[in-house]
């Protein structure tokens, strides 16, 4: 696997699964699936009965207006659960669309096991609870970003969030991470027009706050970018 992908060892990094948990994980990770860019992994309103863990690639959670405009509410990357809620009767609030080719594993068996016998899978239960909390925290960050920030603040804040998420699963190197999204998709994430995204990217590059090359973004000075993002708390983290 490339450095943009996770495998079972990567998922279990720093974790000490019990025997039951290791067996369950191995069963799920035995069958890696692939979805091409553009495929919907979940439809808004449908039951979240087939949760997945992403191993590589990007999934966007989108809502649409009647005239075709769309807003991405969140992005799921390697190491994230997608089409997932701990509550078994939950329904999808948005469409989950593959923004790149995506490798994933189905984790319905893990979710079922955790809900049915939480005592047997304490580590997995904790991980799923943490994942739900992180998704909620990211949603709040996103509302703050698109609701109140100027374009360069939004982009800085977004870059920091993505860097920390990649760093946490071991996919960030030299303060850089993969960035496969087009300017159009970035615009639909950050609520800005494509050309405005283009201008803002160039502004951050000129100021030495962001380097973009070979499908990766690099943050030379994290503290400087944090100052631009106007955040006292680290984006995407749970306070």
């Amino acid at each position: 696997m490339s450095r943009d992908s996770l495998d079972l060892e990567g998922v279990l990094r720093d974790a000490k699964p019990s025997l039951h948990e290791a067996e369950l994980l191995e069963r799920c990770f035995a069958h890696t699936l692939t979805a091409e860019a553009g495929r919907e992994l979940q439809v808004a309103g449908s039951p979240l009965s087939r949760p997945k863990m992403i191993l590589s690639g990007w999934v966007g959670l989108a809502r649409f207006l009647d005239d075709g405009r769309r807003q991405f509410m969140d992005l799921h990357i390697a190491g994230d659960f997608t089409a997932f809620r701990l509550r078994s009767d939950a329904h999808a609030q948005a469409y989950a669309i593959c923004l790149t080719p995506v490798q994933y594993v189905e984790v319905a068996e893990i979710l079922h096991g955790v809900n049915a016998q939480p005592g047997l899978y304490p580590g997995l239960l904790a991980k799923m609870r943490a994942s739900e909390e992180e998704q909620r925290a990211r949603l709040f960050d996103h509302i703050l970003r698109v609701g109140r920030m100027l374009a360069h603040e939004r982009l800085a804040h977004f870059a920091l969030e993505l860097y920390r998420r990649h760093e946490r699963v071991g996919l960030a190197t030299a303060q850089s991470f993969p960035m496969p999204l087009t300017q159009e998709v970035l615009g639909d994430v950050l609520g800005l027009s494509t050309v405005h995204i283009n201008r803002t990217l160039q502004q951050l590059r000129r100021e030495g706050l962001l380097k973009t090359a070979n499908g990766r973004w690099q943050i030379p000075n994290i503290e400087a970018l944090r100052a631009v993002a106007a955040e006292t708390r680290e984006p995407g983290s749970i306070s």
Partner: protein
Amino acid sequence: MATFFFNFRQGKFYQVDDLGCEFESVEDAYLGAFSAAQDMWRELLIKRQNPLLCAFDVMDEEGRHLFTLPFVEVLDACRGREDAPRPPVPHRHVLQQTLDHQANAVRVMLGVSSTVADAKATLREAWNLLDQVAKLT
């Protein structure tokens, strides 16, 4: 898809776009520039910078100039629109309007009653006169 470059002008300041944006056609690139100008108006005003001094010079991949979009075009697009906001027209409370209508109706009814009474009196007088004429003959 083709790549278009949106060089940015702000007064004497000029910034060359070395990144570019992909659009299907020159028309789409124009709409993209217009949409960005709309976005940027708000931000420029917040930063106390004058959007009227700004423009995009849009180039193709060979560096040929395709068109210029001065940000003032965003304002021009609003001029002469029929749905432009109009000054509010003061309107009376609906209850007051109902009371006024009721008062008008009462006035009309009184007028009709008075006319009917006058007609009856005139008729009575006519009958009296006819009676008197009949007695004389």
